[in-house]
C-alpha cells in the first residue's frame, strides 16, 4: 500500500491505479456488517433496487406489494451504527400507487428530480420526486417486465419498455407517447438495457431464447441476434440456431465501458458477449442457478480490476470475475430468494433485495479501529448486543 502511495506521489503510477487496487481489495472483503442495515419498509418481496448515478446517495426500491420507497444511504450521524432510513415512500394509501407488483424502478439518469417505475398493472409511471406525484403515465396492453432509460443519452429521452407482448416499445418523455416499436422477438421481453457507451444502442432479451441488439435509428430491424455457438451450426440441434441461451433469457447487463454484455438464462448459464460484433467470448462461469420466472437483476462492479459480477444465486449472491469466469465467493445472508442487487461504486457497497422483504447492505470489512483512536469512554454499542445482567454480586 505504501509502495502504491509512493509511486503515485512520485509520478511512476497513474492516479487511477491506487484507486483500482484499493477498490478491488474492498470488493473482495464484502460482508454483512452488524452496524449497517436498511430500514424495512416492504411487506413482501423486494423486486428491484436502483441507486442514483449522480451522487450515489439515494436508493429506490420497488416491491411486490406495489410500494416504492426512497432511502438515504449516506451516514451523517457520526455514529458507527447506522440504519439507512426511508425518506419517503409511495405506500398503499397513496392515490396513485401501482396496483400490482412493481418490477423495475429507475432514477432519471441526469438528476434525482424524477424517477420511473413500471409494474405488472400494465403501466409505466413517471414520478416527480419532490411532490411524489406521477407526472405522466404510459399504459400498455400486457404486463410490463422491465424498462430502462439510457444513462448517456443527450439527444433523446426514450424509455425502452419490455412487456408481455413480443414488441419492444420506446416511450418518449418529451412528447408523452410511444414513439417507436421494435419488432423481432417472438415471445415476451424479459429484460431491456441501453448501452452505456452509445446512446442509440439497445439490447433486449426475450423468453424465446434470443437476445437482440438494436440501433433505434434503423427502421429495418435488429443489428445483431446473439448466437451462443458463434455460427457453428454443428454444436446443437437445429432449433437452437441463433439463440443466446437454451432457455428463457432473464437478465442483461452491460459492462461499465459498454464493450461487453452479460446475459443470464434459465438454462443455468451466464454468457459474456462482445457487444460490437455479437461474438460469444466463451467464458465459462459454470452453473449459475436461475429459477426466476421473470427478470433477474444482476450488476457489475465499477472501478476495480478485475471487474466482478454479482449474480443472485438462490438465496445467496454469487460473485464471479467477469473476464475469467472464476467464482470468487457466495455472499450468504438472505432467508429467501434474492431478486436484485445494486452496487454503489463510490464506497464499493452492495445492496441486495430479496423475497424475505429485506434489503441487506454488504459493506467492505474495515480494519478494526485501534484502541487509542477511541476518545469516548464508552464505545457506541448497538442496544441489541448489550446484555441486561449486572456484574455486581448482589442480586440485581
Amino acid at each position, binding site marked *: *500500500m505504501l*509502495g*502504491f502511495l509512493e509511486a503515485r506521489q512520485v509520478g511512476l503510477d497513474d492516479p487511477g491505479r491506487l484507486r483500482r*487496487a484499493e477498490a*478491488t*481489495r474492498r470488493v*473482495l*472483503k464484502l*460482508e454483512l456488517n452488524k452496524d449497517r442495515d436498511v430500514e424495512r419498509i416492504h411487506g413482501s418481496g423486494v423486486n428491484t433496487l436502483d441507486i442514483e448515478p449522480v451522487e450515489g446517495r439515494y436508493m429506490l426500491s420497488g416491491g411486490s406489494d406495489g410500494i416504492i420507497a426512497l432511502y438515504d444511504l449516506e451516514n451523517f450521524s457520526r455514529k458507527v451504527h447506522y440504519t439507512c432510513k426511508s425518506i419517503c415512500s409511495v405506500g398503499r394509501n397513496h392515490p396513485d400507487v401501482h396496483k400490482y407488483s412493481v418490477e423495475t424502478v429507475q432514477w432519471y439518469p441526469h438528476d434525482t428530480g424524477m424517477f420511473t417505475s413500471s409494474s405488472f398493472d400494465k403501466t409505466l409511471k413517471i414520478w416527480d420526486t419532490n411532490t411524489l406525484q406521477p407526472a405522466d403515465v404510459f399504459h400498455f396492453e400486457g404486463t410490463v417486465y422491465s424498462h430502462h432509460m439510457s444513462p448517456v443519452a443527450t439527444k433523446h429521452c426514450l424509455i425502452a419498455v419490455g412487456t408481455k407482448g413480443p414488441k419492444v416499445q420506446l416511450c418518449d418523455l418529451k412528447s408523452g407517447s410511444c414513439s417507436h416499436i421494435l419488432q423481432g422477438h417472438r415471445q415476451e421481453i424479459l429484460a431491456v438495457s441501453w448501452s452505456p457507451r452509445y446512446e442509440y444502442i439497445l439490447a433486449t432479451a426475450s423468453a424465446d431464447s434470443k437476445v437482440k441488439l438494436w440501433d433505434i435509428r434503423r427502421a429495418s430491424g435488429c443489428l445483431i441476434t446473439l448466437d451462443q455457438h458463434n455460427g*457453428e*451450426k*454443428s*454444436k*446443437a*440441434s*437445429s432449433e437452437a440456431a441463433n439463440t443466446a441461451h*437454451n432457455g428463457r433469457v432473464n437478465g442483461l447487463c452491460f459492462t461499465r465501458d459498454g464493450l461487453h454484455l452479460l446475459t443470464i438464462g434459465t438454462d443455468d448459464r451466464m454468457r459474456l458477449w462482445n457487444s460490437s460484433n455479437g461474438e460469444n467470448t*466463451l*467464458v*465459462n*462461469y*459454470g*452453473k449459475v*442457478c436461475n*429459477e426466476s420466472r421473470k427478470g433477474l437483476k444482476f450488476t457489475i462492479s465499477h472501478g476495480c480490476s478485475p471487474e466482478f459480477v454479482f449474480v443472485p*444465486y*438462490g438465496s445467496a449472491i454469487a460473485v464471479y470475475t467477469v473476464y*475469467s*469466469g*472464476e467464482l*470468487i*465467493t457466495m455472499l450468504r445472508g438472505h432467508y429467501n430468494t434474492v431478486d436484485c442487487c445494486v452496487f454503489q461504486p463510490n464506497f464499493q457497497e452492495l445492496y441486495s433485495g430479496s423475497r424475505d422483504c429485506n434489503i441487506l447492505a454488504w459493506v467492505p*470489512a474495515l480494519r478494526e479501529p485501534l484502541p487509542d483512536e477511541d476518545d469516548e469512554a464508552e464505545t457506541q454499542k448497538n442496544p441489541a448486543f448489550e446484555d441486561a445482567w449486572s456484574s455486581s454480586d448482589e442480586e440485581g
Partner: protein
Amino acid sequence: MSRKRPRLVPETFGSRRRRGPGGAGEEPPGGEAGSVRRALRELGELFPRLLFQDALPPIALKSQVYSLVPDRTAADRQLRELRELGEVRVIQLGFDADAQGIVFTEDFRTKALASCRGRPYEGTVKRFLASVLPACGDLSFHQDQMTQTFGFRDCEITQLVNAGVLTVRDAGSWWLSVPGAGRFVKYFVKGRQAVLGMVRKSKYRELLLSELLARRAPLSVRLGLPYHVHDLIGGQLLDIVPTTSGTLLRLPET
C-alpha cells in the same frame, strides 16, 4: 466469517505487481494444452476397457475434464486448441445436451476400423475415416456437406449409420458417433443415477469423498466410482466442500 476472508484478498498490494511482467513468458509452447491433455490421459486410464471387450476407445466426458482442470475457461480454450490440432474429437452422447464425450482421434480411428473389419461396409467406413475426419472437425455433418463436398451417396450414408459411425440428428444431418457407444451411454446414465443416489440416501445428503470411494459400488455402477465422481463434480451435480477430514461431497440445495 472474517477468519476465512483473508485468503480472498490476494496480493493486490504486492506480488500481483511482481507477477505481471513475468507472466507472459511462463507457459512453455505446447504446454498450453498440456493440462487438458494430461487430464484426458488420466481419464483414459480410468475407463474400463475390458467391460466392452476392448471394442471402444477410452471416452472421457467434458465434465470430467472440468473436475481435473478447475479453470473452466482455460479448459475450454485448451480443448478447442486440441480439436483444431486434430488430436481429439468431441462426440455428442445424446442423453444430455451438455454431456459431450472426448476421444483421442487415433484411438477412435483404430477402434472404428476394428469394429467394421470383415463387414460389407468396411470400405465406406475407411473412406469416411480417411477423407471426412481430417477435413471436418465438427460434431455433426449435413446432407449437402456429405454429398457434395465429400461425394458420399445416400446408400453409403446409410451404411455409415449402420456401422455406428454416424447417428441421426435431424432430417439431413448426422452426429459423429463411436460404434458401440450405446452400451456405454446406458451404463453411464445408470451409474450416474446410482452414485447420486448413494449421496442422496446418506444422512444429511453429504458424504466424504474417501468414504464414497471406499464403499462397494452398487451393481449398476459398471464404469467405476472414480469415473462417475469426476463427472458429477465437474458437471456441478455435486458440490465440493473442503473440510479438515478431506473433501466432502454434498448435494446442492437448489
